């Protein structure tokens, strides 16, 4: 029995995006953060404390990487003619978009699982509470959809390859380092930076995943996840709208 259209598109997206170069960027780079930063700083005298702190942060960061995968897929498909080719085939625009988001989500979850495995090999411990895994799973899924929608929105609007790459690199840098992925939110931060940290959706994901991973999920984490859910719905709506209106036809 043939697979439904959506799953065929997901299969294709995974197959054409899992070359060694892409995997090194997607998983190797965050993995190296974990090993070099996590292990390196821990060796500086804090034992494994920083590694345990960084692990959920890097797992959360996978949702950003997943989003960039989605945006890059749409960009590449448009640039290399496959978007028009697929849409002159048996697929609808919505199926194509959902295929990309689902693929991004799978990359996010797969990357987070790899980070968890790397951390286990270094820390020799894992959370035992099934609820923790549920929260981690949900946070990364919603986060992947949020960042995937954001990148799809950008790739639907930006026409130049250089501009798209610059925006993507800048966004990764700001979102990554103005969040609680690498360090906790310090009370001593200037107000503007603190506001940036607090408005950053990656902070919400990192806090929730860390809370679940370390077994101390708070009401604030749940509240932040609800905000993230609302933001994701808005980002998804805008991404679908701009993409459905964009010109995909070939010249």
């Amino acid at each position, binding site marked *: 029995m043939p697979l439904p259209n959506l799953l065929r598109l997901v299969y294709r997206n995974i197959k054409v995006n899992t070359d060694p170069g892409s995997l090194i960027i997607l998983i190797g780079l965050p993995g190296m953060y974990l090993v070099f930063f996590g292990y390196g700083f821990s060796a500086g005298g804090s034992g494994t404390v920083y590694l345990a702190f960084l692990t959920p942060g890097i797992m959360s960061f996978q949702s950003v990487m997943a989003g960039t995968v989605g945006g890059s897929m749409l960009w590449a498909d448009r640039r*290399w003619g*496959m978007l*028009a080719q697929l*849409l*002159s*085939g048996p697929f609808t625009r919505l199926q194509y978009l959902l295929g990309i988001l689902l693929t991004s989500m799978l990359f996010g979850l797969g990357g987070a699982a790899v980070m968890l495995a790397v951390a286990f090999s270094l820390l020799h411990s894992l959370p035992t509470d099934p609820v923790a895994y549920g929260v981690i799973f949900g946070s990364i899924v919603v986060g992947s959809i949020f960042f995937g929608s954001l990148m799809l929105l950008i790739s639907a609007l930006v026409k130049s390859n250089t501009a798209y790459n610059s925006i993507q690199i800048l966004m990764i840098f700001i979102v990554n380092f103005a969040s609680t992925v690498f360090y906790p939110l310090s009370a001593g931060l200037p107000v503007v930076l603190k506001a940036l940290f607090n408005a950053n959706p990656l902070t919400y994901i990192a806090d929730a995943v860390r809370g679940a991973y370390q077994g101390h999920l708070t009401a604030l984490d749940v509240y932040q996840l609800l905000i993230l859910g609302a933001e994701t719905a808005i980002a998804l709506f805008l991404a679908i709208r701009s993409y459905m209106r964009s010109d995909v*036809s*070939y010249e």
Partner: protein
Amino acid sequence: MVIAGEHRLWRGRCSSEIVSGGPSHLPLGETNDAVVLAENLRHTYDGRHYALDGVSFTVRRGEVFGLLGRNGAGKSTLIKAMTTLIQASEGRLRVLGLDPTRDGQRIRRRIGVVQQAESFDFTTVQGNLDVYGILWGLPKEERVRRRERLLGQFGLDELRKRRAFDLSGGQKRRVQVAREFMHDMEILFLDEPTVGLDVVMRRQLLDSVRDQVRRGLTVVFTTHNLEEADYLCDRVAVIESGKILMLDTLEKLKRLYGGKKTIDLTISDGDPPRFFGALTAALGAGATVTSNGMSAVILTDDPKGALAKIVELSPALGVQLEWLNVRKNTLEDVFLHSVGHGGESIASA
């Protein structure tokens, strides 16, 4: 579902159809063998200029229908409308009896499209065919069988492990066409598939398409290469500035100019505009002179008389004759003559 089984004669089965911008006489959906019906189609991208401007035609099941025109004439816009990538601004269109605005996905399940632009996944030639087969829902056994047949048929066997993006332009084109045959279809839309191909590769590709057509496939084919339209198409529509200027079988289009012959003329020295102007006046209404720099194409029903005038005028106006050739009309002459009328519609008798 369709491309196997039905045998047909190559060429000559289509009756004449003359369309010059007006609506078809056939009510939509009431013909059994019409797979595309267009009535007074118009399309604008900017709200001011019409890329399609009142186009009407039918494509019949099992024929190769050519859309001939210069760059920017409206061929690709028409293909986009028929393949549901854009919705025509005005007019009515039916593809396989379905309305593209409502039934786009149902239409796309039954057609194949080879775009004018490159389109590949970042994988090998074999991988591109495989992925496409998966996208079209082919079971593994069938997918492998088709892939192997097409790799052989399109001369891609030795290239199967190469990345599609690393191939030459002609090789890429063959991969694109071969890939489209991974799935069944009732109509294949080919948008200038031979651009960038050398003569041998072009012939190989056209022969491969022709082989599929012999099995019953309908092909809509855009080109500005008149030789390949002559080689492949049953009927052609000459399109210019979004309008169909002529639509008929190739033989009828060529007969449009009846006993006329074509003279190719190249001169040197002298004043070419003055010479060609004088020649036009001397030949009168029985001939058409289309000049371009030092060359001209003369369409005439009295080639002997025209030659005499050329020989008489050239020394008088200080012109040296470099090349003079009399030949039968080709599709190119028909095309040049029709678009040379600057958009005026011409219908064959």
